[in-house]
């Protein structure tokens, strides 16, 4: 390319902004479908919310120190964190590899992960906008106890993007298994089962048995669910909040390294079927 080129970091930022914007435009074309899909996604947290608030009320207003209002706050914030956690899934990888749809991305002088990250980041802005009225309704229905400090709000704002990166890298690595296996659904189902139990998605981690908490402590799952939620609704100390962000950064680095390592070998197996 003979054109005068801006610096690499500025160019990458420009790409993220442009790609995010095109994704927002695409998403707005299907806003009703997106909204219906988001409402459908509410079934899961509402079940948890109803179950735990009921148990809490039956046990005199709390379960292991978590009050009914705190459960409500946990699962309402959960809905936002879950939306932030939606990333390009292994099913998507399976489709793009099996059908040869990865070819267009491979022809660009940019790692396909940038495209996934930028597109889904753009998508988040639409879902957050659509999530706000849903959050208001849930707030009015379940009366949560939520009184975060400014620091907690700041850490939460960073942590939800950290969660997004952790889950993107984790699921991209899993998705790349398709380069060897053609199908990845069974592995993805196993991932979902582990994530449900060990991330705080099903129940807040302190309600899990000690052994499960010990296992969760050495795995990345809780940093994409429990930590960001608890950063806002819990009462972490400043040290806990900052060390939580550091743990997220560590997992992002580890999983990004793993993703890039797997990619180096995986892409050699691409057969560009049909395209």
């Amino acid at each position, binding site marked *: *390319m003979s054109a005068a080129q801006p610096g690499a970091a500025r*160019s990458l930022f420009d790409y993220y902004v442009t790609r995010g914007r095109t994704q927002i435009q695409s998403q707005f074309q299907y806003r009703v479908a997106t909204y219906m899909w988001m409402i459908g996604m509410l079934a899961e947290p509402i079940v948890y919310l109803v179950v735990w608030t009921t148990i809490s009320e039956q046990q005199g207003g709390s379960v292991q120190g978590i009050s009914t209002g705190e459960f409500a706050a946990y699962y309402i914030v959960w809905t936002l964190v879950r939306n932030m956690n939606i990333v390009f899934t292994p099913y998507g990888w399976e489709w793009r590899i099996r059908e040869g749809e990865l070819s267009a991305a*491979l022809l660009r*002088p940019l790692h396909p992960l940038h495209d996934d990250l930028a597109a889904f980041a753009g998508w988040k802005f639409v879902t957050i906008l659509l999530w706000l009225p849903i959050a208001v309704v849930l707030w009015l229905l379940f009366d949560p106890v939520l009184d975060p400090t400014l620091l907690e709000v700041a850490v939460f704002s960073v942590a939800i993007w950290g969660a997004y990166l952790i889950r993107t890298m984790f699921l991209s690595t899993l998705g790349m298994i398709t380069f060897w296996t053609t199908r990845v659904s069974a592995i993805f189902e196993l991932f979902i089962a582990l994530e449900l139990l060990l991330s705080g998605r099903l129940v807040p981690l302190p309600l899990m048995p000690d052994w499960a908490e010990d296992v969760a402590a050495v795995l990345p799952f809780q940093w994409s669910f429990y930590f960001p939620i608890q950063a806002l609704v819990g009462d972490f100390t400043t040290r806990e909040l900052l060390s939580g962000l550091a743990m997220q950064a560590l997992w992002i680095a580890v999983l990004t390294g793993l993703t890039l390592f797997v990619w180096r070998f995986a892409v050699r197996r691409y057969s560009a079927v049909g395209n």
Partner: protein
Amino acid sequence: MSEPAVRVAQLNKTFLVPEREAGLRAAVKSLIRRQHREVRAVDEISFEIAPGEVVGFLGPNGAGKTTTLKMLSGLLYPTSGEATVLGHVPSRRERDFLSRITLVMGNRNQLQWDLPALDSFELNRAIYRIARPQFVQIRDELIELLDVGDLVRKPVRQLSLGERMKVEIVGSLLHRPQVLFLDEPTIGLDVTMQKRIRGFVAEYNHRYEATVLLTSHYMADVEALCKRVVVIHHGQILFDGQLARLGDDFAAWKTLTVELEDVTADLSGYGDVLERDGGRVKLRVPKAETARVTARLLAEREVADLTVEDPPIEDVIELVFAQERP
């Protein structure tokens, strides 16, 4: 002598394909012991393309054309052998390499489906890091050359196949690539659209001295654009040379068209009669016999006119494709 833009040496690509008989029993058996078969899609091919050259890459379906183009554009990792494009090894997929090539596939959509093509062009500007003033100039020039000013504002999904192909080409050339790999760029298009795209490729090659490797099943594309063709079949190169020479190597006959005064004359003794229209007779004659038969006709018949031609390129290509693996 400048460095070749494309250099391929003993390039191979082998796919391992799972294989089993039909039926439940075979399916159960394959659970325990999976059988594979090696398919050699590209077999020890070598060729070079000079900068600015337009080369037709011909072969029947499954010959290995697209596999070769995919290896040259960095999509596929070769099994063995060497390939360089503009001095880069394609499989390394370096930024500088990918910024200087393009692969246009007639059956492939690379633009954002739901958005007007202009938005996808904007995305390509960011991907290829094109400075905005240059981007606007190139984009507008391509839009004008391909006459797609009205189309680029419509969502891509609402465009016809031909319209989509034209905006695809604009999107693929915004970074002004020096090497174009065109895989059936005119497939499924009507004759007018094919002609327009052919004209555009010729103009692009002329204006920017771009190197073009083109596959097409439409011989009109090849005849209009390529002086040189590489013919591949069963993964191996059967011919590499001037298009005009293809007939010499593969067609064992020539066509003689004779105009006679005598409309009833029987010319079957001179060669195979292909057509007859009054006194105008078209004969197929073995190449080695052409001079002798021509002399005989002129000596023995009242000939008003006589022309000797190579067979049409379509017929020659058909002959080439009919070749079996050596």
